[in-house]
């Protein structure tokens, strides 16, 4: 696939503070790329430097190899959906969608056809003569989308487009957006701080932290093989076992948590010295009533509390070795009950070893 948009060591400084710090990334044509990160991590800054509203302090941004770092926004031909939609309140839905076509001098008949088909795609053809304030949040969001897409931009930039909507509507629109992406083949660059949204919609996700890209990859990669404790913490729920590496043969690496030992497949993990953390996702842990039933990697514990989420249970298991562990259990097996004594087990192919300890780990494991 041809390269569509490239960041090359882009920095953006505000005074002495770097909102973007040496960001390099290649976004492929037609890709659904999500920028994910906590508040203040530089997501909007990165998106706005693509849109042309933020001028990088150094580095370059290229579109199909062509330098666009200092091009003004109106020359870029990108669709932008702003966080608050930014619909023009003095124009009707139709006039809002017409705006980018009018600027480009598209003939009336052609413009009308484009507006009609775009409004049909977002299912707003019956509301074309309304003003934005007469629409619900979800409808406004669709107008913003239609307006950003009607001139067939090369790139669609979306800054938390669904964050103001309630959960059910958000789910619907997520599906619609994904649909639209597949139908039109436009490159989407999507900012969110909702990890579930990022996982379910994206081709690739870039996790941002303090203006840097912490990890970049497909959703499965990021979830299954987080590259840092920050990434593991940010995407999904995790248990962190404070461990040391104590042995290594050609099949397994052996770890110790206190006096307790367990093994992970050698080809799945890095060899590490010093303090490390083993990341175990709650849904990779299993609960067993007896030691014999549990896999080789196991520890004894007592269920402290259980939460029911409709599609699964989440149990907090208090263990002597590793403190509290979060374990998800499906609805098929027996329901976990608070107070039960259990064995928590996991297979040798499910853990990820990372250097360091999570912040605040000392209190958590004492």
């Amino acid at each position, binding site marked *: 696939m041809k390269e569509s948009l490239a960041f090359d060591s882009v920095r953006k400084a505000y005074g002495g503070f770097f909102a973007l710090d040496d960001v390099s990334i290649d976004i492929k044509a037609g890709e659904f790329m999500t920028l994910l990160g906590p508040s203040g991590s530089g997501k909007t800054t990165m998106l706005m430097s693509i*849109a042309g509203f933020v001028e990088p302090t150094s580095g370059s941004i290229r579109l199909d190899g062509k330098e666009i770092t200092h091009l003004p*926004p*109106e020359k870029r031909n990108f669709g932008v959906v702003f966080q*608050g939609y*930014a619909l023009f309140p003095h124009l009707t839905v139709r006039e809002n969608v017409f*705006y980018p076509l009018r600027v480009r001098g598209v003939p009336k008949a052609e413009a009308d056809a484009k507006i009609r088909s775009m409004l049909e795609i977002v299912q707003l053809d019956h509301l074309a003569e309304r003003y934005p304030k007469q629409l619900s949040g979800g409808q406004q969001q669709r107008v913003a989308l239609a307006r950003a897409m009607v001139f067939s931009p090369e790139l669609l930039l979306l800054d938390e487009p669904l964050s103001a909507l309630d959960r059910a509507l958000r789910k619907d629109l997520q599906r619609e957006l994904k649909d639209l992406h597949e139908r039109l083949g436009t490159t989407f660059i999507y900012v969110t701080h909702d990890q579930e949204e990022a996982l379910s919609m994206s081709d690739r996700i870039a996790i941002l932290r303090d203006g840097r890209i912490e990890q970049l990859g497909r959703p499965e990669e990021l979830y299954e093989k987080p590259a840092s404790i920050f990434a593991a913490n940010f995407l999904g729920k995790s248990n962190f076992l404070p461990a040391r590496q104590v042995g290594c043969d050609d099949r397994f690496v052996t770890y110790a948590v206190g006096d307790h030992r367990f093994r992970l497949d050698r080809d799945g993990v890095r060899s590490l010295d010093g303090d490390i953390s083993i990341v175990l996702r709650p849904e990779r842990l299993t609960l067993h009533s007896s030691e014999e039933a549990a896999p080789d990697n196991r520890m004894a514990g007592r269920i402290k509390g259980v939460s029911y989420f409709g599609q699964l249970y989440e149990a907090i298991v208090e263990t002597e070795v590793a403190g509290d562990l979060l374990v998800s259990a499906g609805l098929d097996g027996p329901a976990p009950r608070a107070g039960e004594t259990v064995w928590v087990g996991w297979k040798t192919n499910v853990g990820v070893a990372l250097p360091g300890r999570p912040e605040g780990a000392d209190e958590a494991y004492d």
Partner: protein
Amino acid sequence: MTDVFAPSARGGSLFGASASFRKNTAYWVMVLVPAVFLATLYLTPVISVMVRSFVEPTVGLDNYATIVDSAAIRSVLGKTAYICFMTTALTLALGYVTAYAMTHAGQREKYVMFFLVILSFWISVLIRTFAWIAVLQPQGILNDILIGLGLIERPLRLVRNDIGVIVGMVHYMLPFAILPLFANMQTIDRTLVPAARALGASARWAFFTVFLPLSLPGLAGAGILVLIFSSGFYITPAILGGGKVVMVAEYISLQMSETLKWGLATSLATCLTVVVLALTVAMSRFMEVGSAGKRV
């Protein structure tokens, strides 16, 4: 409080009614006292002025006929309209730029600019008018500077004519335009112009198609406000016009104090009041339309 609510709490509807009557009485007294006060001190003179315009010196519409017929009065009214129009146009232009700058300035700059605008309210209009004479007169600061720089050879005539009056009036009116314009611009979503540019509009086109239309209610409100104020301006034209530029307010005063034609004076005053009332109604319509546009 308790004795007002206690009877109805006991369920006696008669007691409840009398309590609410007592409450209403207090309410009406509080409304009526200032209303009567305003009516006697404000409405009575206005009405007496209006009545006088129809009965002095003879009963009938003679005074109004004079207004229509007299070439002198027509020229005063024409001059007033011209000065008001120029003042309003210039004030709006300068006020718009200032309000725009204030809206887009950083937080601290915004406070400083706001303070400077408010500051001019603290200085009396008389002092400001005389200050303008010091600046604009033939031996004034401005002419001295221009001659010193060799830009002109003989002093420009900047006072005792329309220019002086308009400069002084624009200066006085500016805060009255800046404040409503600024208030209106504050309500315009800051992402709209960037959104327009992202959609392909140049900075200028985005301003004319997005920002300007959304600031029209502010512009209309400020314009009418300035027009109303300038139509009754008295001190500034009298001093900076130096008797050469006579606007309607000064003309009315002349009729009363010099020629003692009270009938003519009061009929002109009545006309002025009617115009101002009409403008006020127009302004309230614009304000309503403006806020309705936001609410819809």
